């Protein structure tokens, strides 16, 4: 069974630029999550989708972050414009309606 796919794996941008990340979840998983992991900390949920609807986006900085889940499958997370403090690993995870979350390898973002 294929795991959660993410791209790119690494991205370096300058502050005020835009960036987008892509995630393809495990086939059949209804729920998709985006987490932000800052160095030395645990992952923090940014947004949760169930099918193509948003369940929880309470911790998403909506002035600069946006996310969508196309047709209830793939998802993109965008940052526009990026700030220095956005440097982190962005993790995508998926799960069935009940059960553990499976994580992708993450995208490491460096904002200079």
């Amino acid at each position: 069974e294929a795991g959660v796919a993410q791209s790119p794996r690494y991205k370096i941008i300058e502050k005020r630029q835009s960036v987008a990340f892509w995630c393809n979840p495990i086939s059949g998983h209804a729920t998709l999550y985006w987490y932000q992991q800052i160095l030395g900390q645990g992952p923090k949920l940014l947004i949760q989708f169930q099918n193509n609807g948003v369940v929880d986006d309470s911790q998403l900085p909506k002035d600069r972050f946006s996310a969508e889940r196309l047709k209830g499958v793939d998802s993109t997370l965008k940052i526009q414009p990026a700030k220095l403090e956005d440097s982190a690993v962005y993790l995508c995870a998926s799960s069935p309606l009940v059960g553990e979350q499976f994580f992708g390898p993450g995208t490491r973002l460096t904002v200079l």
Partner: protein
Amino acid sequence: DQQVKQNSPSLSVQEGRISILNCDYTNSMFDYFLWYKKYPAEGPTFLISISSIKDKNEDGRFTVFLNKSAKHLSLHIVPSQPGDSAVYFCAAGYNQGGKLIFGQGTELSVKP
């Protein structure tokens, strides 16, 4: 407000001995707890979980203990192996689905 805490950033153990990783939480509404393992440049991998109706769950060399009155859980690895060297995150959630709150992680080093 850190709802899930791992107070030991690192732990070093000799091969063959027991590794004990600890986690404390503050929210008594959590009813589902998990441990994830993370190698460098990879996403977290699910290790073991426990529901709040249990106080122990075992899977091979890994056992998770839950003490609800103390709001404390621990992961025991017996015997520890060098391949267990990784960062371990505890996480807490609700109803075996949805948002997870992660601790900061404990880096385990198992020395041959």
